[in-house]
């Protein structure tokens, strides 16, 4: 029983990471039709930003408010980089989706290489707060606290995004833009401002995922973002490409399947079963879980 609880909570923690990355991806894809390969680089930047802040920024550190400040700094850096990427590199290629994807591919290579050039390819120990390393007893299982941090953050982000989309004017524009972008433009609303916003939001979530992933894994390395990105892509496709709730459901599914299969079968089988799950979903429901039946 305690194993099942531990696996479930760990799977949900992993799902939280996937969701943080995938939510930005699916918002961007839904609104702009761009599959953002640079998302993994945003994640890496967020992780290294937090790590750098903990070492160098006065007031930031690995415990208490210092940790919050460090994460806030990492998220801010990720947000700014994402917004700049949208403004300088994506916007000039407006409506040219393949080129936009190619630019993000180039960026994903270049940005990760830059991080590697500056801080080296070796993993760096990540400054996690002490309480995240302790465990809490849940139904007889001692669960590391960082899982709760991950799950809590993801739930907060999910609720905040849903509220933002439902109750604000910008959210309305984004929802309408996902539904039918040309109609929104025809009504005289500048969708491009929403593009920048969505990109910045996605960058912020990815950076947060990078910082939390550092806590979860205990160390950070430049290639981390790319390996997480592939699973986030799978989550996005299973979730139906442009739906936030779909991404959340798919993230939970993928995280749990991966954890349980990795434990009960063999290490690596979990990753394989996730791909199998993707093939299965695509063959039975080609539009993903949330696709409407036309």
């Amino acid at each position: 029983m305690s194993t099942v609880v531990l696996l479930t909570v760990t799977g949900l923690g992993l799902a939280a990471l996937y969701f943080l990355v995938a939510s930005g991806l699916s918002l961007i894809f839904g609104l702009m039709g761009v599959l953002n390969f640079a998302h993994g680089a945003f994640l890496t930047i967020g992780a290294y930003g937090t790590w750098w802040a903990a070492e160098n920024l006065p007031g930031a550190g690995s415990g208490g408010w210092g940790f919050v400040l460090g994460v806030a700094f990492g998220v801010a850096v990720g947000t700014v980089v994402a917004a700049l990427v949208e403004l300088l590199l994506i916007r000039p290629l407006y409506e040219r989706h393949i080129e936009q994807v190619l630019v993000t591919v180039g960026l994903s290579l270049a940005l990760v290489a830059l991080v590697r050039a500056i801080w080296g390819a070796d993993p760096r120990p990540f400054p996690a707060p002490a309480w995240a390393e302790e465990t809490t007893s849940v139904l007889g299982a001692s669960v590391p606290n960082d899982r709760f941090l991950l799950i809590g953050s993801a739930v907060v982000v999910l609720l905040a995004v849903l509220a933002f989309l439902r109750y604000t004017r910008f959210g309305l524009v984004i929802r309408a833009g996902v539904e039918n972008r040309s109609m929104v433009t025809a009504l005289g609303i500048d969708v491009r401002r929403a593009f920048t916003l969505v990109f910045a939001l996605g960058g912020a979530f990815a950076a947060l995922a990078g910082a939390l992933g550092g806590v979860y894994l205990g160390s950070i390395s430049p290639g981390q973002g790319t390996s997480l990105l592939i699973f986030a892509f799978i989550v996005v496709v299973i979730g139906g490409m442009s739906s936030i709730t779909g991404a959340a459901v798919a993230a939970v599914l993928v995280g749990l399947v991966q954890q349980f299969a990795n434990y009960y079968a063999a290490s690596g089988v979990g990753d394989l079963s996730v791909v199998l799950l993707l093939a299965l979903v695509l063959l039975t429901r080609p539009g993903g879980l949330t696709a409407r039946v036309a």
Partner: protein
Amino acid sequence: MSRKLTRLAPLVVLVVLAVLPFSTLQLPGLFDGVLNSPGTLQLLALCLVFGGVALSYDLLFGFTGLLSFGHALYFAGGTYVANLALTELGWGLGAAVALTTVVGVVLPLLVGGVALRVSGIAFSMVTLAIAQVGSIVVLRDPGGLTGGEEGLALDRSNVPDAFVGVLNTVNLYWLALAYLAVVYVVVAWVTGSRAGRVWQAIRENERRVEVLGLRPYPFKLVVFVLAGLLAALGGVVHLLLLGGSTPRTTTADFTLGLLVMVVLGGAGSRWGAVLGGVLYTYLDSRLTDLASSAAVQDLPAWLRVPLSEPLFLLGSLFVLVVFFVPGGIAGLVARLRERRAGRRPGRPSGGATPPPGRVVEQLRETASRGVGVGAGGPRDGV
């Protein structure tokens, strides 16, 4: 006159490349040693192999419009299967190549059979995910077969003597050249065939092909398998050239590298893709040497740090090409030619085939119509 010249150009290039190992020309700056030194020949052979592999990827991306992110799987499959056959099973080279050919057909057939049921971005994602399985399997080192992160060294006792040893690098060079020539001829032949016309039609407008009464699925499956097979054979040449298989060839970054090569040279152009592959491989190797050279090490940190990562430079170059040289090198040449011929640049040159290297521009029209999951239908908001 110029038409005849363009027809003959590949042949001339082939002859020049074939006799190149007899030259002792010193090209300071470009290569470290004289042209026929083993080091230079090894680098040139590597460039030629990747020229061929890039062309096989162009067959998918440039000629048919299938943006696969899993091409690394077939290349890596080629090197690992051939390596296992030679090293573990102790087979001869001929048998190993035969086995690789079988795998090189069956593997893309299975993957393509599933992946091609969806189109657009979803297709890219499925190929990416399946290729990731290959990467995971190789890294987990099942039964100590693949060597995990270390890679798998080739046992050369079953390789013909002509391909073993530093002095025989020249034979490997010719092997790589032969591989490239075969790929080029095959691609030239199939893209000119009736199936090739259908592929290009699928790239431009898949729905129209359906309306004309053809089923795109088998055509796409055939080109997927052919490109996979050519890549797998490239993997065998790569294996002989480097004397081992490395897990780096299984990663998504490897496929992204192929994509960069093709776009750099010009998607939808045969010589463009080859040139892109050659250029990328050459730059990757030379920039790595440059990074460790004294000239760079003495630079101030803000210059030295970015220069020490070839991928940073190549990635940035790629972004610049996408922005300022749409159509890559082949597109640039086509535009210059149009200008010289007195036509206004950018105007379509007429005829059924699009100007080489302009494929990306055409693909984007397809993409903007929203190919992929949920195309045409209303998409869910929240």
